[in-house]
């Protein structure tokens, strides 16, 4: 059967020695970064992004993807032990994980969340394997108008669904699209917004933008705020980690429910692992016969969200790999890594680059197994990391950012751009603008412009003709619904806030 042939192909690629090595590097660094609060996934991926220039595209993607799902594994450690989420995706895990740790069951919680993460990840990978080829096959009939509408939907959903003001999110998307315009216009070869600078003809560097916006500005806001703390290592002996029979029997259904919820929310644009985890927690609490136990150390309250966020980490690859439309800033970075190597994302990816596609997917599995090993026997090592003070951490982070930016073209110009985007990122943080939509707009902007111009040419300049094809109409209706919903909910929120003031 073709399916098993693909599996074999994928394992062949993923089990090659250097791919195994980069997979390990990715999940190792991912766990490391996930464990330490104050260094986010985006900052981490953008810090290591320059390395991918020197690697094969498959190895590069395997490593970057490993960082992405590895952080979600590691992130639960700080949530459980310190009540500080290591990444936003693990925020919900604090609610029941920290009470468990205070009851001396921190080891059990860490063990169970690792199992839940593994289960969720595996479930998500299965979804990716089953659905990506189907969706890609369907998408082969898409034209420029459909792609333009899909990308617009991705941008609108990603900027308005997550927390905060939808106007600010949308503004950041279009600021990103604007920054993406810098450089030579692909159709007329006119240099736009370059002001005679030759360095700008190829456009602003995605690496400098990501490292400045997420790495540098995160350091600026975390200095003198993030504190290291001490943890009792006794509760983390392997013996103390084994769950009781009651824990195990309570965990089955939450695992399945969490993984299903996570798989669904992972594929949607704008709803990353954080929302998936939250939804799974809410569902579990509603489904439970004893909802009052939640928040006091209920096992279900850590199993469901941890299965959910890892499942959604994996299924986020479905739109990215099968349509070439990333749903989050992290996926946009991965897409950017592909494009740097000249691989054009889209429905043809699976047929044109089967080694890359199946190799990447199979590496997820290998990575998840590695994470299982990294997180259960080696948990003590990660816990010790939590005690590294931030004043040692952040100069190291900055050093890696600087060298990384410099290494791309061995010129100081990119380092100056890191500085510029770091300052911009800080201003945006102070004014409560979300930076992730900006990155998404920056990556998608040039593609969107190209599809828009091509679609308008085909529709003879008539916007309504362009949008009246059945698939585009459906997508446009969804866009309008998302906008209406977010306008309504932000109106409701502001009214509630106004009432609270009175």
């Amino acid at each position, binding site marked *: 059967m073709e399916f098993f042939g693909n599996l074999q192909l994928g394992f062949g690629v993923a089990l090659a020695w250097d791919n195994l090595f980069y997979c390990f590097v990715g999940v190792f660094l991912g766990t490391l970064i996930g464990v330490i609060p104050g260094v986010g996934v985006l900052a981490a991926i953008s810090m290591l992004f320059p390395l991918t220039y020197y690697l094969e595209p498959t190895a590069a993607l395997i490593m970057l993807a490993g960082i992405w799902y590895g952080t979600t594994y590691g992130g639960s450690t700080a949530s459980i032990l310190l009540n500080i989420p290591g990444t936003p995706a693990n925020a919900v895990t604090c609610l029941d994980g920290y009470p468990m740790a205070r009851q001396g069951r921190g080891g059990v919680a860490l063990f169970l969340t690792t199992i839940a993460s593994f289960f969720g990840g595996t479930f998500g990978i299965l979804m990716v394997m089953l659905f990506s080829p189907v969706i890609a096959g369907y998408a082969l009939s898409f034209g420029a108008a459909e792609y333009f509408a899909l990308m617009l939907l991705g941008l609108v959903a990603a900027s308005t669904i997550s927390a905060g003001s939808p106007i600010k999110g949308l503004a950041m998307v*279009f600021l990103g699209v604007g920054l993406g315009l810098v450089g030579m216009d692909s159709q007329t070869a006119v240099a736009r917004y370059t002001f005679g600078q030759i360095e700008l003809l190829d456009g602003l560097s995605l690496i400098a933008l990501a490292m400045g916006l997420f790495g540098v500005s995160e350091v600026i806001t975390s200095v003198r705020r993030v504190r290291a703390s001490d943890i009792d290592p006794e509760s983390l002996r392997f013996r103390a980690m084994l769950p009781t029979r009651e824990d195990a029997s309570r965990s089955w259904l939450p695992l399945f429910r969490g993984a299903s919820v996570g798989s669904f929310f992972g594929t949607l644009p704008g709803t990353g692992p954080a929302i998936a985890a939250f939804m799974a927690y809410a569902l579990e609490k509603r489904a439970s016969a004893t909802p009052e136990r939640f928040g006091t150390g209920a096992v279900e309250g850590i199993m469901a969200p941890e299965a959910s966020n890892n499942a959604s980490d994996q299924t986020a690859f479905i739109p990215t790999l099968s349509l070439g439309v990333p749903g989050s800033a992290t996926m946009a970075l991965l897409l950017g890594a592909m494009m740097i190597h000249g691989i054009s994302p889209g429905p043809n990816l699976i047929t044109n680059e089967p080694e890359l596609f199946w190799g990447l997917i199979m590496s997820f599995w290998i990575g998840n197994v590695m994470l299982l090993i990294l997180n259960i026997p080696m948990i003590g090592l990660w816990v010790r990391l939590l005690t590294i003070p931030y004043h040692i951490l952040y100069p190291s982070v900055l050093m890696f950012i600087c060298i990384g930016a*410099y290494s791309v073209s061995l010129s100081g110009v990119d380092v100056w751009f890191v500085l510029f985007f770091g300052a911009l990122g800080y201003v945006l943080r102070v004014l409560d603008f979300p930076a992730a939509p900006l990155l998404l707009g920056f990556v998608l902007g040039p593609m969107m412009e190209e599809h828009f111009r091509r679609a308008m040419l085909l529709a003879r300049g008539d916007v309504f003709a362009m949008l009246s094809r059945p698939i585009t109409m459906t997508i446009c209706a969804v866009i309008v619904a998302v906008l209406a919903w977010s306008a309504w909910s932000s109106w409701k929120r502001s009214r509630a806030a106004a009432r609270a003031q009175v």
Partner: protein
Amino acid sequence: MRAHDYKDILGGLLLIVVGLFFGLQALWNYDLGTMRRMGPGMFPAMVGGLLVGFGVILLISGWFRRGEWPVWRIWSPLFVLSGVATFAVLIGPFGLIPAVVGVVAVSSLAELRVRPVPLAILAGMLSVLAWVVFRLGLGLAMPPFAWPF
């Protein structure tokens, strides 16, 4: 609580300025083309227009809402960004290790506390690490030391 939401007012103003910059630059200098055959200026002009629009909405809604002044930290951005600048200045003429020491030393001032001995140890260890990882490991063309004169 202030009478207006100054964060959003300032954010709106910034968006309007940036949007005008993108839009006017496109209108004045790049060919718009027609809706059917768009020139290089059409899409940027639309993006600029949208940015101005979002800025205006933000500005107006911020005016009619109570809020706070934005809180700026002065020393952290100053020292962290100066650290990056130090690296950018030193890496070309002086080489990798002086640049690493520069970024570590300047950025650690953001702690507002100088610990000379731990700082020296950290800078030394990171210099070795950078040299091993990037020069030996990845083989990048970065000389550890250089002398421009």
